[in-house]
């Protein structure tokens, strides 16, 4: 809309003109200085310090800790469950977003507001509530028990908790894209002879896909690090349903600071890679869809 929206992007054409582009607005020094100071104090120094501590452990020990079977399995559980949950959410989150954007039906507003519940509900509350439902004596767990399998205290339980936590990420990333889709494009497909399903798979899905992938990545990243909603339902059985964040806490409680730090740093590294991936995805989306 405004000119600023287009000029505020990152790589502004300011090469060779110094750090700050000329402006008549005051307050940059104060605002920028405070931002940087606060960012360093709260985030960068503590995080950097942790990485330094991990580096101090030494290369050999670092790998010895991360490659221990119990740790590897925890990584496998954390990443595997987060991926499965993100994919489940991709399907249902897309349906929820589609329904919320495209259809008008009674209760839509309430449902729309409820989608953000996982953002607003404290994770420990979600954790004990899900456990109460899926434990063998719970509402759903009892059915599962009768059918001969367990949900809580297995990786299935972890996936359920992560589906809960990740849902809004998918819905809220896909929603605006669905909203911005040009109705004319669907009409064009229809007038060219496409069926509804062809229109969805060939025209709509490719347009939604970048946002969907971003949403999956966000839900996945959140799921990997999730702690509160998972620990109750997971049962935390080593090499079965133990997640990485819990392992970190366990090491810390045993005063194994080196172990906790190394595992945390390895996880942070992986999170960074994912963050890079998300950034790349977003850039790709924008370049592809720039009008």
């Amino acid at each position, binding site marked *: 809309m405004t000119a600023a929206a287009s000029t505020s992007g990152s790589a502004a054409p300011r090469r060779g003109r110094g*750090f700050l582009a000329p402006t008549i607005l005051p307050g940059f020094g104060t*605002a920028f200085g405070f931002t940087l100071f606060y960012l360093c104090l709260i*985030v960068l120094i503590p995080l950097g310090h942790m990485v330094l501590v991990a580096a101090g452990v030494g290369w050999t020990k670092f790998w010895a800790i991360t490659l221990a079977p119990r740790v590897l399995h925890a990584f496998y559980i954390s990443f595997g469950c987060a991926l499965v949950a993100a994919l489940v959410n991709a399907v249902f989150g897309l349906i929820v977003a589609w329904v919320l954007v495209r259809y008008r039906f009674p209760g839509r507003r309430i449902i729309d507001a409820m989608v953000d519940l996982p953002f607003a509900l404290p994770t420990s*509350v979600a954790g004990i509530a899900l456990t109460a439902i899926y434990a063998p004596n719970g509402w759903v767990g009892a059915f599962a028990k009768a059918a001969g399998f367990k949900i809580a205290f297995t990786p299935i339980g972890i996936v359920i908790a992560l589906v809960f936590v990740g849902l809004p990420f998918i819905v809220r990333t896909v929603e605006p894209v669905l909203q911005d889709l040009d109705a004319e494009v669907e009409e064009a497909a229809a007038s060219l002879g496409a069926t*509804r399903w062809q229109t969805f798979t060939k025209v709509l899905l490719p347009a939604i896909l970048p946002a969907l992938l971003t949403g999956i990545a966000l839900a996945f990243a959140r799921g990997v690090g999730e702690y509160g909603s998972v620990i109750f339902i997971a049962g935390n059985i080593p090499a079965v349903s133990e997640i990485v964040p819990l392992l970190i806490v366990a090491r810390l409680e045993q005063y194994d600071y080196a172990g906790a730090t190394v595992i945390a740093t390895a996880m942070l590294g992986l999170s960074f890679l994912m*963050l890079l991936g998300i950034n790349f995805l977003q850039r790709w989306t924008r370049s592809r869809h720039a009008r």
Partner: protein
Amino acid sequence: MPADPHSRRPAVGEGPLTRVALIGLAILFLAAFLALPLAAVFSQALAKGVGAFMKGLTDPDALQAVKLTLTVALIAVPLNLVFGVAASWAIAKFQFQGKSLLLALIDLPFSVSPVISGLVYVLLFGLHGSLGPWLRDQGVQIIFAVPGVVLATVFVTFPFVARELIPLMQEQGVEDEEAAIVLGASGWQTFRLVTLPNIRWGLLYGVLLCNARAMGEFGAVSVVSGHIRGKTNTMPLHVEILYNEYNFVAAFAVASLLALLALVTLAAKAALEWRFADQIAAAKR
């Protein structure tokens, strides 16, 4: 072309059967994953009657936890509010090199596991941490004390306000501010009389989300608090302790209070989006 929401079946779109099936599927999924847990919280809290529920809530440790949660939020939210305004002023109103890097760094706490957010402070200020011995000699305790809880909360809620304000202020541009400056307003006057009215609803929106997370944070706080009953226990932590002691009614009673807070937050958020959609629109994109 005026669009008509009440028109009969549109010529292009899904058939009525597909619509009903999709709506049904979405509602079923949300009922199973969102409504059911919420129902579980309240039904478990009242499983042994109102008396047991009230007893869980009025327990001195529970009251202490409520007080601590409010205190922590009261410190963390204003801090991040000031930061959010400063950061969005610098980022949205000026062009400078390295802006995208700064944006990525502000988002960093979102992609860090809450457990790690707590751990980084333990490693700095804990008894075995780098600054621990020195702090002990000064008689200052941060880890396993309230300052640690505040720090961890500030960390995890760090990006919330900035995240809402930056896109909003970018969309609004700099013309209003430039006009004010040209008309002779001072920087502070410009901010107070021009910028602030433009962003107030977005600001409130960010504060709301920030507050919800601050009061509900569990993982990061859990690592730094030491779980000292009646001292460093916030409500989410108190829920865990009670639950682990098999005191389910009390655990769910406190949890229901937090769930209520979540519902109020959602209602307020929905109301803001409903009334001031255009003024927080950029943030929603």
